[in-house]
């Protein structure tokens, strides 16, 4: 048995798309490129970086508790904790403290997490995700009113909506539910570190993978205030964090960015409101709404 050969056969489609299939995407790119010459390329970066401050500049009132906490996090035998890390820890502790003040509204199994976000191309996504994964979830992507229904998974079965063989449409297929709410997420920083590190060999060194997991939890899942605070405190333990003291998110909101870079130039960035330390989004997605609703298409 050659699993690589079997996997290759599983890859569909096998044909490359034609020029017509890509025309719309190309037109959007060309539109973005026009008129940006002779300007600083950073101005078209999703995060409009005006100034990077690795240390200092944290003028927010009410951070005393967070700073104390950050100092407490520094290993006792390490008098030379890297300064950028300390600074990032301060911001994340403030964000964790802000998270604890959020309303605690865990959804009922029959409810939905409603999220609205803006992406790098300016398009708006909306999603209604079933809290327990058994109800039909809905995504509206972009400005073309594209809707994707994701059938709920009940008792391990879900309805087939799309299939090349029309006979399969409407039949039931095996499935695994994707709940938008996981009540079992850890509520302590150590518990969350163990949870995040669990699938990466028990460490936080895989910053790319961890970054994606954090992004998923913060944006695509309902995470209760104590779980969210634990998550942000866990992020504070990732090695090599830096702070962008002055960033704008994709929706143009001012914020403080927490980022980490790997040697090859890869970067994960999370933005928090500079006043409230509320989570605003990432370098590819600005969170515009995040609420528990009763029905698909409800917005509040």
């Amino acid at each position, binding site marked *: *048995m050659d699993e*690589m050969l*079997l*996997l*290759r056969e*599983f*890859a*569909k*489609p096998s044909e*490359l*798309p034609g020029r017509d299939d*890509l025309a719309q*995407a*190309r037109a*959007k*790119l*060309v539109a*973005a*490129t*026009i*008129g*940006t*010459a002779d300007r600083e*390329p950073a101005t*078209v*970066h*999703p995060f409009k970086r005006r100034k990077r401050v690795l240390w200092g500049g944290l003028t927010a009132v009410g951070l005393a508790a967070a700073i104390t906490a950050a100092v407490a996090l520094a290993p006792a035998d390490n008098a030379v904790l890297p300064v950028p890390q300390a600074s990032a820890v301060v911001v994340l502790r403030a964000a964790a403290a802000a998270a604890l003040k959020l309303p605690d509204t865990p959804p009922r199994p029959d409810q939905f997490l409603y999220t609205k976000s803006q*992406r*790098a*191309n300016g*398009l708006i996504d909306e999603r209604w*995700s079933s809290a327990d994964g058994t109800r039909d979830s809905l995504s509206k992507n*972009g400005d073309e009113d*594209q809707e*994707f229904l*994701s059938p709920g998974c009940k008792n391990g079965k879900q309805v*087939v909506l*799309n*299939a*090349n*063989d029309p006979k*399969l449409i409407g039949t039931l*297929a*095996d*499935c695994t539910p994707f709940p938008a709410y996981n009540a079992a997420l850890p509520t302590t920083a150590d518990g969350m570190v163990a949870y995040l590190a669990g*699938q990466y060999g028990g460490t936080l060194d*895989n910053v790319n*993978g961890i970054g*994606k997991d954090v*992004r*998923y939890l913060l*944006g*695509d899942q309902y995470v209760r205030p104590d779980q969210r605070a634990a998550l942000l405190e866990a992020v504070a333990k990732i090695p090599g964090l830096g702070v962008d003291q002055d960033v704008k998110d994709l929706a143009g909101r001012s914020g403080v960015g927490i980022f980490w870079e*790997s*040697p*090859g*130039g*890869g970067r994960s960035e999370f933005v928090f409101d500079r006043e409230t330390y509320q989570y605003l989004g990432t370098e*590819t*997605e600005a969170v515009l709404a995040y609420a528990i609703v009763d029905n698909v298409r409800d917005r509040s």
Partner: protein
Amino acid sequence: MSSPGEAEDDAKIITASLHDSERFATIFDRHAPHIQRYLARRLGSQIADDLAGETFLIAFGKRARYDPKYTDARPWLYGIATNLVGQRRREEVREYRLRAAVGAPADEACHAEQVAEQVTAQAMNELLATALAGLSEGDRDVLVLIAWEGLSYEEVAAALDIPVGTVRSRLNRARKKVRATLSQSDQTLSEEVSNHG
């Protein structure tokens, strides 16, 4: 007919696009088909059309940070696309399960042996979907970039910004897990074939 940029490598075009931004369209023309197909393989073609465009917009925004020592931009673009896939795990697993559920079109007049083959293929696809869904995201990224997209270890390392050693270890782990899922179910497969045959 070829444009003046055709003969240049990607690094030179990306560097030139810092001052002449419209040159970046050449990067799209060279690589968009592969990036769109990759996204379609992971998320289905509808989402892929949208995300392929987004991949290039992000790449355009990040072009000042492109390392010109890489003359081929495709691994870099695969990396950006893979990050977008990471935000849509649910759709990804759904796509694999859907692909398994669709299977090959049934042929009403086919011989029993062909039915058996078809059942085997269908069951195999379901196992592959289960195996892929069961991998950690990092392992799955490495596995599909190598198995589906034909990237070298070094290219995957550049795409995902991880050391080559990590690519090897993730690939080994992923292959082992996929093999385990497939072999555990050999018995189930043969039973299904005999029932239908």
